């Protein structure tokens, strides 16, 4: 349909040109002109950001916008392989306690001031260690940053921190201008909404709640970049409107799942659109079902394993996630390479007979109304996936004699019910697994992280000293082979104990773009990077 419309429009312009109303050059007749740079990129986003600085807020809009203005010390190629950015070289000492970064020379801030090692020291010590949601943990062992000269930054660590080296990109750890932040109240600093970075784009205008307009920074250190002439992010609250905007050509690309999956798949089938699932490795996330082990029924491992057998995770993957991902098989996400493994990890294939058998064995025969016992299921109201999956889970568990009641609440009330009041039995939620398991996965399994009052901590009240030891060792292990072995053992034990069943490892939120848009998912960070390589045919 869109194709015939295009033909009509072209035909219409053609007739106008013939009539001398439009310059003939405006009517493209063949394939795209030879061009490999430039253009205007328009994309819708929601919600609108509070800041334009992801050093002080880890929420979605900040994570998307901030990397356009700011650079990190490193970038990451696909597979989370580090590559130079503001740091051109880095060296980790034998004992893992010092990391020396050689910084790029000749880099300037958008206001013309030179970038130096002082900016790096200030950003890590005063901002990321203090105000960044995940930074507090990631940089817990970072004691100081020495600056022997303007282009050398030495990180001193109290313990080795291998996860840190995966968290130095522009989204997770943007480097801020010390000369504008030093001595001010960082959260209240006006630069938070009028960014002055070293990044490829500078802010042209920001209409709160409406749009962010970015233009290239003419003195950007990576000569020739960014390729775009202009980058416009519009804030559009309704997903259906965002989809219609893409279809009608009012916008060029949809990043980070800004429209529902089934719409993405529908539009991707149409001519003139292209979809990719690469470029999201920095944010692997999963849907997981967590048991409250303080419930005496759920404290029985046989019951937990029976529940795992009763749920067809493939059904959830196909019908809730439209096949965008893999069925859960381990506490880690499949994108958490090279640590993810299924080797030796127990699996719980869909098998209702087995589930019934295990429940009988656990000592819960069917009673009144053919039911064995009653459980409460709290699905997270974030997004629609948990709620949609909860309807399915309730129905299959009913088939094995578990009477499940679904309790749907406001997000804040949901978090309080589960992690503060602990009034839950089963909880179903999506969570980020982190660029490194230390950052995203440890929190659910470490006994020290059983912290009522902290959302998305160890809500199961899982406590296995063996697992604690493995995870604590892995968080400071510098030898990658040894770390791989530690995580493999962790995955085997945790999936045998089963405080949490992973339902689905969610695939990268697909990027959907008009075929006029090129190079929009260049590395591991994709749209959460700078998008300086992206260009649009006009």
């Amino acid at each position, binding site marked *: 349909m869109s194709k015939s419309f295009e033909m009509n429009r072209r035909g219409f312009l053609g007739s106008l040109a013939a009539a001398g109303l439009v310059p003939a050059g405006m009517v493209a007749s063949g394939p795209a002109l030879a061009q490999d740079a430039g253009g205007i990129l328009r994309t819708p986003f929601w919600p609108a950001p509070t800041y334009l600085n992801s050093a002080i807020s880890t929420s979605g809009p900040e994570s998307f916008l901030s990397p356009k203005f700011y650079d990190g010390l490193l970038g990451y190629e696909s597979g989370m392989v580090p590559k130079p950015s503001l740091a051109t070289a880095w060296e980790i000492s034998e004992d893992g306690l010092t990391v020396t970064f050689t910084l790029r020379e000749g880099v300037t801030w958008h206001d013309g001031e030179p970038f130096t090692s002082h900016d790096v020291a200030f950003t890590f010590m005063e901002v990321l260690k203090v105000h960044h949601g995940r930074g507090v943990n990631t940089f817990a062992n970072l004691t100081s940053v020495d600056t022997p000269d303007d282009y050398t930054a030495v990180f001193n660590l109290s313990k080795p921190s291998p996860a840190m080296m995966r968290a130095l990109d522009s989204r997770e750890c943007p480097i801020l201008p010390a000369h504008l932040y030093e001595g001010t109240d960082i959260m209240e600093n006006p630069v938070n909404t009028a960014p002055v970075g070293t990044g490829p784009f500078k802010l042209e205008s920001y209409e709160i709640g409406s749009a962010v307009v970015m233009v290239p920074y003419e003195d950007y250190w990576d000569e020739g970049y960014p390729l775009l002439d202009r980058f416009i992010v519009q804030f559009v609250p309704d997903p*259906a409107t965002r*989809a219609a905007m893409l279809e009608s050509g009012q916008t060029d690309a949809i990043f980070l799942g800004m429209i*529902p999956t*089934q*719409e993405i798949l*529908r539009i991707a089938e149409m001519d003139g659109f292209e979809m990719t699932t690469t470029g999201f490795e920095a944010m692997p996330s999963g849907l997981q079902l967590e048991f409250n082990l303080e419930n005496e029924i759920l404290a029985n491992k046989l019951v937990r394993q029976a529940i795992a057998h009763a749920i067809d995770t493939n059904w959830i993957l196909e*019908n809730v996630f439209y096949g965008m991902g893999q069925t859960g098989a381990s506490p880690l996400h499949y994108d958490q390479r090279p640590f993810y493994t299924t080797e030796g990890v127990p699996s719980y294939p869909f098998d209702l007979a087995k589930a019934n058998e295990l429940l009988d064995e656990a000592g819960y025969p069917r009673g009144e109304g053919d039911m064995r016992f009653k459980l409460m299921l709290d*699905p997270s*109201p974030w997004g*629609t996936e948990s*709620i*949609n999956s*909860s*309807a*399915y889970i*309730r*129905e299959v568990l*009913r088939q094995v004699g578990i009477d499940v*009641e*679904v*309790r*749907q*609440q*406001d997000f804040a*009330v949901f978090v309080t019910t589960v992690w503060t009041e602990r009034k839950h039995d089963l909880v179903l939620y999506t969570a980020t697994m982190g660029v490194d398991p230390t950052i995203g996965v440890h929190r659910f399994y470490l006994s020290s992280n059983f912290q009522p009052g902290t959302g998305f901590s160890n809500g199961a009240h899982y406590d296995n000293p063996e697992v604690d030891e493995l995870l604590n060792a892995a968080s400071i292990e510098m030898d990658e082979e040894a770390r791989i072995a530690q995580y493999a053992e962790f995955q085997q034990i945790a999936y045998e104990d089963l405080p949490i069943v992973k339902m689905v490892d969610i695939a990268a939120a697909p990027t959907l773009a008009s075929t006029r848009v090129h190079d929009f998912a260049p590395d591991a960070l994709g749209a959460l990077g700078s998008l300086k390589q992206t260009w649009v045919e006009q």
Partner: protein
Amino acid sequence: MTGTFAHIRRLARHPSGLFGLLLLAAIILMSVSAGWIFPEGPWAMVGPTRLHPGVDPRFPLGTDTYGRDIVSAIFYGARVSLFVGIASAAIALIVGIVVGAIAGYFGGKVDDALMRLTDAFQTIPNFLLSIAIVGIIGASLPTITFAISIVAWPIIARLVRADVLRLRTYDFVQSCKIIGMSDMRIVFQQILPNCMAPIIVTTSVLVANAIIVEASLAFLGLGDPNVMSWGTLLNVGRQQLRTEAYITIVPAVALVLTVLALNLIGDALNDVLNPRLKERT
């Protein structure tokens, strides 16, 4: 009370009233028979997912995203819609009548206080208040019923107060007072029966409104997740409106027909109960 049968007979002779009654009877029949026709319940995933209507004769209206039979969901949904509609209208009626009657009969400071309370409720947009209440105390059938009735009673209160205010000056009320009848008896035995006509008519609209609000809440994802209502289907369907529109259309039609039936009955009742229009029917 002797006129009740006569009223019903006249309602059945009223053309649009008869149509409304038949429609409502069909919906009641659906909700009563749901358990016999679909013993496995509305949640059973009985077929392939997202089966369009008319493809498989076993599922004449198709299946939803979970492979649940939409016909079964509509039958069970009728129960919820009728329950919420009637229960919340009943609560609103009781609160509204009591508040309205007391305010109208006693007047003065009591009237002022009660009417300001009514104003307070009326100044808040109804639907927003319902959303807020359900959002805070959680979505379950009782809380939803409560949230709907809490915003519906002021209309009844105002209606009753206006009628009581008018009637209390009448001679028959004065004579009741003179023979020493208690205030309660005067209000509930003498005055209220005389202002039932507008209340009954408004009630039919109230029920219809409650059904719509429940469906709207469920549509927004604030329905009771353990109860299959038409709104539940709307909410499931909303997410695939572009690809499987029938999941939304089927419950929407059911809602339209139910509300239409109630409105037709309300209109007909208005005609039947209005003494000046007696000749017309």
